[in-house]
């Protein structure tokens, strides 16, 4: 999972509700308003909205008497939480040692440039969420990226962009993403995030 950018996350963009006050209240009730159940509540909010809208978190903090700083601390610590809506497609680009040596940083630069997306961010057209990671365990394919679960190896900067443009113009919504979101009920874990930078 990516490192979310700090700073003000986007405000609630969901058209179906007004700042989710009722959603949050319902979730709080579900757990009897117990502040110790903060994480499950946040998981439920994410399951309902696809990410953690800022207004929801404010409401949550206010209602539970938990400082907002604490909630953001939790939200940014666990990779399973998202503070920004996810794009239609998720690009996971490996920046591990081998991929790095084979030019992953150029690929990253071109993707950022082409789709106006920052690492950890979502493109303005909400097509792509871009998540650089460290070693996908597929070094033989280096440099490698995964888009919606599908692996693309031996990339160059231009082939990566070609692939992404093709995906962007196809109609099919990413099923993998939708499914993963629906299953966000498992306890957030900080494991399995790949190795540290050398």
């Amino acid at each position, binding site marked *: 999972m990516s490192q979310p950018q700090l700073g*003000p996350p986007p405000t609630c963009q969901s058209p179906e509700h007004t700042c989710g006050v009722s959603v949050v209240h319902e979730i709080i009730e579900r757990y009897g308003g117990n502040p110790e159940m903060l994480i499950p509540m946040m998981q439920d909010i994410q399951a309902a909205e696809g990410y953690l809208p800022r207004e929801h978190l404010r409401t949550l903090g206010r209602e539970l008497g938990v400082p*907002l700083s604490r909630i*953001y*601390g939790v939200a940014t610590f666990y990779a399973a939480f998202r503070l920004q809506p996810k794009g239609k497609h998720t690009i996971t680009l490996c920046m591990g040692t081998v991929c790095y040596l084979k030019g992953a940083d150029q690929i990253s630069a071109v993707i950022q440039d082409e789709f106006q997306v920052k690492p950890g961010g979502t493109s303005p057209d909400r097509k792509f969420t871009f998540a650089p990671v460290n070693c996908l365990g597929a070094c033989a394919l280096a440099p490698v990226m995964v888009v919606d679960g599908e692996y693309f190896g031996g990339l160059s900067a231009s082939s990566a962009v070609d692939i992404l443009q093709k995906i962007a113009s196809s109609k099919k919504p990413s099923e993998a993403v939708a499914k993963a979101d629906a299953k966000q009920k498992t306890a957030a874990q900080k494991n399995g995030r790949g190795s540290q*930078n050398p």
Partner: protein
Amino acid sequence: MATIYIDNQPYVVKDGQNLLRACLSLGFNLPYFCWHPAMNSVGACRQCAVKQFKDEKDTKGRIVMACMTLAADGTRISIDDPEVRRFRAGVIEFLMVNHPHDCPVCDEGGECHLQDMTVMTGHNYRRFRFRKRTHRNQELGPLVNHEMNRCIACYRCLRFYRDYAGGRDFDVFQWHNYVYFGRQSDGVLENEFSGNLVEVCPTGVFTDKTLKGHYTRKWDLQTAPSICVHCGLGCNTIPGERYGILRRIRNRYHREVNGYFLCDRGRYGYEFVNSPRRIRQPIFRSERSGAAQPVEKQAALEQAAKILGSGERVIGIGSSRASLEANFALRTLVGADRFYRGLAEAECRLLDTAIALLRDGPAPAASMSDAAQSDAVLVLGEDLTNTAPMLAYSVRQSTLQREIGLTKRLHVSWWDDAAIRQALQERRGPLYIATPAATKLDDVATEVYRAAPDDLVRFAQALAHALGAEIPPVSALPRKLAALADVVAEALYLARRPVVVCGTSSGSESLLRAAGNVAWALSAAEHRGQLCLVLPDCNSFGLGLLGGGSLADACRAIQEGKAETVVVLENDLSRHADQAALKLLDEVRHLVALDYLEHATTAAAELVFPAATFAEANGTLVNNEGRAQRSYQVFVPQGKTQASWRWLQEMMVAVGRQAEASWRSFDEITAALAEALPIFAAVKDIAPPEGFRMAGQRVPRQPHRYSGRTAMHAQADVHEPTPLADPDSPLSFSMEGSQRQPPPPLVPRFWAPGWNSMQAITRFQEEVNGPLRGGDSGRRLIEPQPDAAIRYFSDLPAEFEPRPDEWLLVPVDHIFGSEELSALSPGIAQLTPAPYLALSASDAAGANIQEGEKVVLAMDGLHQALPVRFLPSLPRGVAGLPVGLPGMMHVTLPGWAKLSKVTAS
């Protein structure tokens, strides 16, 4: 006592502590990051590694963290073992991977714990060649600067801010390489102790933003030991100056007073010293309302002689923010019976009541360290965070005491901070707060009671009665309240070191007396009740002991024609007197003022003398526990500015009274004070005399690395000027002098070889968290009477009744804004609220007043239009009036006022 072996040498250390603390107390150089003397151990940084051996025969040993290992009898460790040395160097190398190495442009450079520790471990070659992770910094307001890239993730900032200072808007975000310490989003740090992050953070992540505006390295600052002048607690400070500009304030450790920390008012209130509103030259007005004319010193003194020569019709008005010496000089000039304290009548009465409680009863005054170690605290009527900030910090720490005691059976060491907090969770020990409105300490309070001052008195008296004070029970107390009184009485009774906190800011003498009753009843039951009384100004206590009438008395003297010349010392009378009194004072024949800044009184004076601030003259201040402490001149001020007592002495000489004012130096005036008033006898002994030398040398105000001495004045002269003489203290205005550790009152800065940051403090203490070597400085001037018969007070006001068309105004204090001098410092001024009137939402609704709407307040013939702000916790019928904010008029509170809506015209 335990014997431990460090590199095969035996050392005897105190039982129960951890190895890091023991090693530092013994003077070893053992690096650390996450440990802090005030915050103990969490074992997070792995920097304090040592090698521990099972016994003499064990040669292999294993690496342990010194801060997490008990220094038990027989423990054998090595600091010097090559493997553990490599380990420590390796830890630093890892921390340095992401550290930007930007020391030359970092404000921390030269006093950086990370620099010191890096050098100490011997990591001196960088192998990492890759990109470093970078962060976006946050804008945290006018006081603290944020530069996240420098973070080494020691977690000290978070622990201080959240766990110790009680801040709620700061946390750690993200994980591993990306951990981020800051607020949830940009914005002013809300906590009143945020400035301590500057000293707590071992790197340059958090630095002093006001210093940035006139940056100077630590080694280039001229410093001297000083006392904070922004409230009555007397925290010890180290102000630093260069080029005639006061550049910052740092903490000066005092075990009994402020420990390792300062509040933001104290740390950032200093900039008034550099204010463009400073008076730098004597001013004369030939017409009272005419233009001010700067005059030469001699001409001003001649003018003063002319005015004062008229003899006995001169009165003097002293000041609670001026030193004992300055007040004493004025008192000598005008005569004891013509010396007035410069406080309103009510202020005088409150002050006298408070001092009498500490002098006449059995309960000793509690220092801040006593308050922090207390296992049951009762706060009556004080919003401590805003009236005595560091005391609020201490009381917050007290809430852990009883619970820590209870965790003993869990076999958790007291210094294992993470384990203790884990075990305690949200449990906090007895703290009861009874105030008119909510306070910031309420979040750790066991129970709060909010009521009008009279009801607080009734509650406190019921409590005193429950504790056995021989006063009648309080009848008709609501049942719930009576039950609460019993609960609080029990908690105090069962505590080992109960402390009762009260003060003058509620404006109720009865409340002070009731607090006295509670503490005395505890003492009578042999429960060592301590009394901690908050006083408003840095020398309120001293002025109280000096005695003298109130401003009302002064006005009476004027009215009766007994005074036609008034000399006002360091006092803006509009802060203490009402309009009528001010008018009277304005109209006396001659008004002479001495002060540092222009204000209403200096503007009305015919003759004004430029007085030195705390940083420009020595002075003795008496804090709220009655401790006399010496504050030293840091630098020589510009222009004709000099200490008030010197001006007053020169005035006396000018009128031909040299015999009475023979004091030429600071020591001489303190000696005269001690002789004239026996209560101040100890004042001359609280610090070494001017003649004190160490190995024949003075104590240098400038560090031995002070740079650019010849260059500093090159525009005037390429020759290095002779250092200015200091006739008043054993300190020198130069870098020459003894580099040894001076006696505690003279310590001008904390520095030791290898220790450039504030962490050098452990080299100055007898042991970690002990007194500075040489003992705690300052001396208490009054002691309690443990054996005197207790005469309880029976004040019992009637129950508070809201009135239909009036409101009881109670004072609301603001840490930023309520104190005169700090409010003139730009950083603090930015955080100062605009004047307002506080109402509870329900009361406002009843009167059909919206938030933000302007109302006219009418009280004692005063009218002021103020916008309304909601303060939900106010009791019915009670309104809050912020005190001391720039633009607020002086009124004596509590008092009844009428409110009327402003009708748009």
